């Protein structure tokens, strides 16, 4: 007869489980973030796509020191420096970056470049949609880095 009791207990458990799922169905709205239509919620220190920043007066922060290139563990960053034209300087220092490329296929988003940069020129932004149709597009040029797209993200307040 213990088998019969097992069956009744099992039936009660199943009824409980089904009651719970039904309650979920009728009372809880979906928690899905419909990402491309709605912004994704991220933490404020999230490390997304690279950005090169400028000062308020429009000069580039990057001074072409190549420390980020040296700090990069995967060799994703390529910098070539050039002398500033004193009449029309690109950056406040003596030199600026004439070429600044980030290879996103190599980047592991560790943030070491950010930490190594003496002028806080290179930062990892909040852009998360990095997919492209072409492998060449994974190589970010200096223009793309200086003009980052609007990140489709909001920053969580409860951190």
């Amino acid at each position: 007869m213990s088998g019969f009791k097992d069956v009744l207990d099992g039936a009660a458990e199943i009824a409980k489980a089904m009651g719970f799922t039904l309650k979920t169905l009728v009372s809880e709205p979906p928690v899905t973030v419909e990402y491309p239509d709605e912004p994704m919620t991220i933490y404020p220190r999230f490390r997304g796509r690279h950005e090169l920043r400028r000062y308020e007066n429009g000069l580039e922060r990057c001074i072409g020191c190549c420390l980020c290139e040296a700090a990069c563990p995967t060799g994703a960053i390529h910098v070539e420096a050039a002398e500033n034209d004193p009449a029309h300087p690109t950056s406040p220092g003596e030199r600026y970056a004439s070429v600044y490329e980030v290879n996103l296929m190599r980047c592991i988003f560790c943030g070491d470049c950010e930490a190594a940069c003496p002028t806080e020129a290179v930062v990892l932004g909040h852009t998360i949609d990095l997919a492209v149709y072409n492998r060449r597009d994974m190589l970010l040029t200096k223009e793309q880095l200086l003009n980052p797209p609007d990140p489709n993200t909001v920053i969580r307040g409860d951190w």
Partner: protein
Amino acid sequence: MSIVLLSILKSLALIILLLTGFAYLTYYERKLLARFHVRRGPNRAGPFGLLQPIADAVKAIFKEEIVPGHVDKLIYIVAPALSLIPALVIFAVIPIAPDLRLGGFTLQFHVADINVGLLYLAAIASVATYGIILGGWSSNNNYALLGSLRTAAQMISYELPFGLLLAAIILTTNIGREAGTLSLIEILNQPRPWWLWLWLWLAFPMFFITMLAESNRSPFDLPETENELIAGFQVEYGGIKFALFFMAEYISMITGSAIMATLFFGGWRGPFADPGTWYGPIVGFGWFFLKVVALLFVYIWVRASVPRIRYDQLLQFCWKVLTPLSIGYLVLTALIVVFVG
């Protein structure tokens, strides 16, 4: 001649109806399961994702047809069709709406009114096992073979309580009559006293469990346990051949719901579904459709709630619990028929 033509037309309409039903059942299941999981489900293709089944069908049809080199080719190709056809032909004996009378012409909404309808149900349901066994066998793959052998054991075991409960239902058709009937149409046309409805509903949970096992639905989806058998008998199948197995499972869900709706909940019967009127068939089909959708909801609800059981538990439950219970039910029904009827 005209009756043959009419039957062919009705069969075609039924097949189209069932295949469309299958397509939207996958949508219904995905949407419902998503809501059970507090997700949204498919919503990108068309409004509310309503075009998703069509996109899936197009994808399955245009996939590359791959026949692996180590399979038994003929059986491998025939097996998916063999599992789909029984699921489709079962529907032939199920009345989906009351008769339509126009002048002297009567249109019946079932393909065949055969006098052994319930026997036909049980027989065709067993044939469906062949498709799965042959699919697993011809795949020449350990996992596929294990999956299909499990199906065989499972389906044959659960046929027993299924048959016993059917026998009990057949017995109840004797009440107040000289002879009972096996025809689903006749059963539907017989009025039942209220206590008989209650007594039959007592058997409904047991019958529902056997239907779950017969259509290999969760928590009895042992033939395709992903965690131990990858996908069981379907493992060597791809493209449209896989889709046929998939269709077989879902259409047997629809068929099972239709059988239960007809036997336990009065099929197309409901308020305003009056036979002989012009609106009767429409309202009747509406009731039938609603009942089937409600039963499909229970199928999906069970899938969302109950974890898959172990294989020995599956067979133990069948032989030690369900079969004795249904034998007891059959005996009690017989007593009721003899003493009350």
